[in-house]
């Protein structure tokens, strides 16, 4: 007698979300026509017509075509998550700063009365770093070295000597508050193709000065804007706004300000809560989402009206994370983050940390550049703790559909706030909303409007659907 076969058993294809079948999450993106179906492990997604989403999930086509490309999708993502070598350094030539910004990730006492790195030590450090990169990177590679702060131009002579000595090897950058950037300094940096990063937190002094001012409380807005105007056409210019509760409502106006000044590229980075000052300035997430998206909307509108784009770099990086994970530049919105594996930080006393955010957390110092070989430093427990922190390793990120478009940043602030690394981003709701906004941008066919011209250059498409 033949055994009865369950009608549920049959060659209907590979079922999703069971057994060895692929797993797809459904994400509401707030668009009239589309919802997102996401395989989080490979960062693969498809925007499915809203009224056909269930058919996609229960049908045979999506699981089948996904499985055919799953290996290449996973390899692509894993390469950028686990396959990179350190190729950049944040280098603090001094502990001191001539400003007292409310959110700085370096301790106030060090910024007020800390030490400059001895010029000879600075040169020794650059040699150690070059030797390390020469031994680890492919021939011809030029790692990036960014003089960071505190205010690196307080040690201008030593910094400029280093640039002159090693300018043929490193791609240098200077992140500065611009107060010491006189004509001579500007000319030097431009002549040596040094990236120049400026910080400006508002479109008006009464906004910008709330968080960025001298120790005596004086404004530097006018000086910063003057330098911005002088360098706006310099390809190496880098404009950063730290978004806090003090300026979050001014972001749309700030976008108009930058656009009017001719800025083509800016970062609107939510403040990190690594130090108490930063924590106290963190914006409400809902308010941040509201005004950040209004700023993105405004940047889009201005681009349409004038034909001149203002790319918001941190959002553009998220879009790249969605459509071309390997092409991303910022490594803060992926896990493991770039700290300790794509770049690391060297403090003014030679201390080495996975990232500048960790310089103010001594327990995350791997050791000293002048005492311990870098290959050993990069394998110490503090570094390994950061470089092995993956979003799928803890809740709720391990069940989050957008975990590889967010990265649960930043481990330094997560640690400072939670006392452990295995916790979600303090701005978790904001990052989720940002991913939803990004999907809406794609659904509207406006991807190119939020990215640089030519962003597809050098990329190869993986056709799944």
């Amino acid at each position, binding site marked *: 007698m033949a055994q009865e076969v369950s009608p549920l058993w049959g060659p209907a294809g590979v079922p999703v979300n069971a057994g060895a079948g692929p797993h797809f999450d459904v994400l*509401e993106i*707030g668009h*009239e*026509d*589309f919802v997102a179906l996401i395989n989080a492990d490979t960062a693969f*997604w498809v*925007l499915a*017509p809203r009224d056909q989403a269930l058919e996609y999930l229960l049908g045979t086509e999506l699981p089948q075509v996904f499985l055919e490309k799953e290996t290449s999708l996973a390899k*692509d993502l894993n*390469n*950028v998550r686990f396959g*990179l070598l350190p*190729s*950049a350094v944040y280098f603090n030539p001094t502990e001191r700063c001539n400003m007292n910004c409310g959110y700085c990730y370096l301790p106030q006492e060090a910024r007020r009365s800390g030490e400059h790195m001895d010029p000879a030590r600075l040169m020794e450090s650059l040699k150690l770093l070059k030797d390390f990169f020469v031994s680890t990177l492919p021939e011809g*590679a030029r790692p*990036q070295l960014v003089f960071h702060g505190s205010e690196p131009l307080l040690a201008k002579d030593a910094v400029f000597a280093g640039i002159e000595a090693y300018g043929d090897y490193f*791609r240098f*950058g200077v*992140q500065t508050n611009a107060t010491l950037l006189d004509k001579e300094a500007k000319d030097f940096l431009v002549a040596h193709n040094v990236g120049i990063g400026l910080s400006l937190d508002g479109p008006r002094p009464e906004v910008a000065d709330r968080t960025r001012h001298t120790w005596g409380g004086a404004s530097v807005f006018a000086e910063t804007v003057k330098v911005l105007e002088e360098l706006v056409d310099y*390809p190496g*210019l*880098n404009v950063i706004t730290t978004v806090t509760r003090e300026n979050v409502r001014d972001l749309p*106006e700030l976008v108009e300000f930058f656009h009017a000044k001719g800025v*083509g*590229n800016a*970062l609107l980075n939510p403040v990190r809560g690594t130090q108490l000052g930063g924590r106290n300035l963190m914006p409400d997430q*809902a*308010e941040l*989402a*509201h005004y950040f998206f*209004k700023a993105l*909307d405004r940047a*889009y509108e201005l681009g349409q009206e004038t034909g001149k784009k203002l790319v918001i*770099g941190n959002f553009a990086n998220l879009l790249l994370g*969605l459509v*071309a994970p390997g*092409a991303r*530049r*910022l*490594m803060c919105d992926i896990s493991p983050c*770039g700290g300790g594996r*794509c*770049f690391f930080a060297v403090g003014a006393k030679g201390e080495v940390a996975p990232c*500048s955010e960790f310089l103010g957390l001594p327990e995350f110092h791997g050791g000293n550049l002048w005492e311990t070989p870098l290959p050993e430093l990069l394998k110490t427990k503090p570094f390994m703790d950061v470089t092995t922190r993956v979003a799928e390793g803890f809740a709720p990120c391990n069940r989050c559909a957008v975990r590889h478009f967010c990265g649960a940043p930043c481990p330094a602030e997560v640690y400072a706030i939670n006392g452990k690394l295995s916790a979600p981003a303090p701005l*978790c*709701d904001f990052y989720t909303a940002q991913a939803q*906004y990004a999907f809406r*941008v794609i*659904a509207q066919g*406006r*991807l190119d*409007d939020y990215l*640089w*011209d030519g962003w*597809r250059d050098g*990329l*190869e*498409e*993986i056709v799944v*659907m």
Partner: protein
Amino acid sequence: MRKADTWDRIQNRAQAGRLCHQPAFTPAAVEQSGPAGKPHEEGGQYIMAKSESSKVKPISIRYTCAPNGDQVGLSHYLMADAKKAK
């Protein structure tokens, strides 16, 4: 720039029930203007516009490339990319 009444309404609604069980989504949803499509508020509920999805095709975009050593942290990635926006 701030629209106090609108913002207060968001806050009140968010506290009352985390709109649509999409807490992170709600702030942007309030404003109807802007280029990216958003749901709209109607009678205290967030409603999706009537779908015309039978006319739309699925969208999936994925490119691959070898990372080129420009991967950096928050403050200086435009060193490599600034000229792309020019």
